[in-house]
């Protein structure tokens, strides 16, 4: 009676699983099986090494498991096997100590070579610095004075909210797209420094063939040499708090000439932004900009309507600090952070902070409704 029921349940589950499998094209599974070969000398070396070890352990597995299965089949009591009573053999024991040692040495030699190759970070033609923040990346092009943040794109961010009702499958590159891509030249030895501003993150683009921790207070150096133009996507690989899953990396590798054009564009844009921070802004300008700054930097914790997350992140709607007519406490808090709140002094410029504050003080039923100017923020730095 019970067993029949159980059989039914097992049958049901199997049928259900098969349904799911057949629904998705088999090709989908085949793409999601193995390490990428990547586009750098390092990644290709690593891929080769991976396949080599995989074959070795598979071969060992086949031999060991076959012997076990053979023994399980033939040396069973039900087949009339009578137990022998031997309990050691020096020859056998030496053999199965020596053979694994030989296999390990064979594996260690190419692994050592690869590691030595990967650690040669010298004579790079250019250097970028990657800084991990909760939960975005900052890129500094040290040779060109370019610097920007890169956060997950808005469509992914909307879709990933709890109960958003948006089907991730309708979003292109769900969780793998950013607002500002890291543009890099191909066929160039690039030094990539990783560090972090708050907690430990880990910068990982599989196609480059490595990942490296980004540790606050320390700088790790790495290098890459991309051989093919293309867009290569990656993610933070070290748990860094609530939105660890939502700080993707997009590297766009372009020919050198195209890269030079991009560098010039970036420089002009940054000049314009710096000028903006100096002048007096109108309330409407601030409110408009503030909305975007808030969405990109604050919603992750304080949520779209300033309602916060119960027990974790305070609401800004109705907050005493936000509604204080003296704005200085609020400016200090944003500049310097507090507990889980990051310090924004190196993330946002004066205009960004002034805009975000103006937006917050004029929204969600907050009562002060005043205007904060970039100069107010500057005065508190």
């Amino acid at each position, binding site marked *: 009676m019970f067993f029949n029921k159980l059989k039914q349940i*097992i049958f049901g*589950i199997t049928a259900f*699983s098969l349904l799911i499998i057949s629904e998705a094209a088999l090709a*989908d*599974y085949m*793409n*999601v*099986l*193995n390490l990428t070969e990547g586009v750098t000398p390092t990644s290709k*070396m*690593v891929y080769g*090494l*991976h396949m080599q*070890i995989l074959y070795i*352990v598979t071969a060992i597995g086949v031999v*060991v498991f076959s*012997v076990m299965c053979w*023994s*399980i089949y033939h*040396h*069973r*009591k*039900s087949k009339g*096997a*009578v*137990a022998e009573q031997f*309990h050691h053999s020096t020859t056998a*024991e030496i053999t199965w*100590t020596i053979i694994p040692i030989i296999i*390990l040495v064979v*594996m260690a030699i190419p*692994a050592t070579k690869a*590691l*030595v190759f*990967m650690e040669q970070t010298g004579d790079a033609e250019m250097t970028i610095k990657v800084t991990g923040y909760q939960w975005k990346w900052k890129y500094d092009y040290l040779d060109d004075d370019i610097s920007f943040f890169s956060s997950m794109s808005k469509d992914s961010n909307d*879709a*990933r909210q709890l*109960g958003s009702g948006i089907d*991730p499958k309708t979003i292109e590159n769900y969780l793998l797209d950013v607002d500002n891509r890291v543009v890099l030249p191909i066929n160039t030895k690039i030094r990539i420094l990783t560090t972090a501003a708050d*907690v*430990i993150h*880990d910068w*990982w683009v*599989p196609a480059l063939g*490595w*990942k*490296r921790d980004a*540790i606050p207070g*320390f700088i*790790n150096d790495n290098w890459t040499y991309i051989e093919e133009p293309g867009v290569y996507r990656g*993610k933070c*690989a*070290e748990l860094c*708090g*609530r*939105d660890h*899953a939502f700080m993707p990396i997009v590297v766009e590798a372009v020919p050198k000439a195209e890269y030079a054009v991009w560098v010039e564009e970036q420089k002009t844009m940054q000049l314009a932004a710096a000028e903006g921070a100096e002048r007096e802004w109108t309330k409407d300008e601030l409110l408009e900009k503030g909305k975007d700054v808030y969405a990109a930097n604050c919603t992750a914790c304080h949520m779209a309507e300033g309602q916060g*997350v119960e*027990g*974790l992140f305070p609401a800004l709607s109705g907050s005493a600090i936000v509604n204080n007519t003296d704005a200085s406490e609020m400016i200090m808090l944003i500049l310097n952070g507090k507990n889980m709140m990051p310090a924004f002094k190196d993330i946002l410029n004066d205009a960004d902070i002034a805009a975000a504050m103006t937006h917050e003080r004029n929204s969600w039923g907050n009562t002060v409704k005043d205007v904060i100017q970039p100069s107010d923020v500057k005065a508190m730095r």
Partner: protein
Amino acid sequence: MSEAVIHDDHHDHKPSGIGRWLFSTNHKDIGTMYLVFALIMFFVGGAMSMVIRAELFQPGIQYVDPQFYNSMVTVHALVMIFGALMPAGVGLANWMVPLMIGAPDMALPRMNNMSFWILPFAFTLLLSTFFMQGGAPAGGWTMYPPLVLQLGDGFPYLVFAVHFLGISSIMGAINIIATVFNMRAPGMTFMRLPLFVWAWIITAFLLIAAMPVLAGGVTMLLTDKYFGTAFFDAAGGGDPVMFQHIFWFFGHPEVYILVLPSFGVISQIIPTFSRKPLFGYTSMVYATASIAFLSFFVWAHHMFTVGMPLTGELFFMYATMSIAVPTGVKIFNWMATMWRGSMTFETPMLFAIGVLFMFSIGGFSGLMMGITPVDFQYHDTYFIVAHFHYVIVPGIIFGIIGGIYFWLPKWTGNMYDEKLGKLHFWISTISVNVLFFPMHFIGLAGMPRRIPDYSVQFADWNSIISIGGFVFGASQLILVWVVIKCVRGGEKATDQVWEGAHGLEWTLPSPPPFHTFTTPPKVTDATAHS
């Protein structure tokens, strides 16, 4: 049955009521309490993994806030490791070590009581953090700063829970060492000890060496957070990576603390059901000891990506690879024990064979991750989640479950339901592979670990993995059912229980009286285990 035992039966008076358990100094009752506690924690931790798998069933966030998801991942690991696996191992030791070496009880019975009763207290501290401002720990069971320092009011509770768990483990370890060193029956020399006892002596030394290191590490976290020190804060001259060195200096031996008792169990089961003595007893003891020794020199393979100097990376790569040698010796010895035996496949043997196959799979991926340049790709992906779940679930947990089926008739005096046991084995084995094998694929294809949501190419495998998870979780209820059924009755077990069983524990009645071996038995080569 020896004379001493018959004499024991005579005044087999158990204390009654709740006091029997609260004030117990009896190794059998304390062993039972440890095992029941472990089982409860197994389901508490299991419930958390069900939340994880439900959230990961589809892309997008359906059920829980990412912060709560991180708490699930973190507390699942802490509960399983410190609440289920370690207490289960200690429970088996409490029950079996005195019976196997012919001792009347543990050497330090009151300390035994205390080391158990600390556990529910410590887990109350830990689990109460769910109701606190800032929530439960969410920085991973590895507790890396600076992230872990962002935890709210729950932080000191986490630290003190770890302290208490450490104290409990150390007391348990001291007790086992004191018992085995001082209370062996005449003739029970060290090289006659059953391998389960050997495995536990070595584990106990590992515990004493490793747990204080963890306690020191979390204390430094505590002072960093509340007393202005900067051990792990670069701004104050400290180093966040130093915590990782401290943690893994504990953490890698810890994985052997978990696995060695399970190895000990299957070293008892395989000879019994092969009806043949254990192959290579001496090399088994030495292999176990060398694994334990080497385990203190490989910790940094958990941190290859922090940016160590080349020589450090090479050292830890070679050291990690070398552990494969003694591990291989153990696997080959178990195979040679089965070879030319006369095997039967009762449930304990099925679980032991499951360990041989599936622990090996975890060993293979472990070896792959030990190769530093490739680990740069594997690290912190689902590949490593696959690795440690293979060694922990069908490696360690199957070993413990095998031990439970193996000794249950001895403990209760009744045979368990063999049909249900086999059903439990087969459903568990199939589902555990559906659950963990595809994790290798998604890990290699680039899915990071500890994320509540993933990009859509991983969706199909994740659904399959979740189904495997739900079936595996549900099938563990069969174990509970088998145990309850067996405690309540069933076919009476003989003293020897299993045809091929040898050793002192099988000379006692099933169930053994409350006090056993009050007069020590005499052990000769013929009556010894191996």
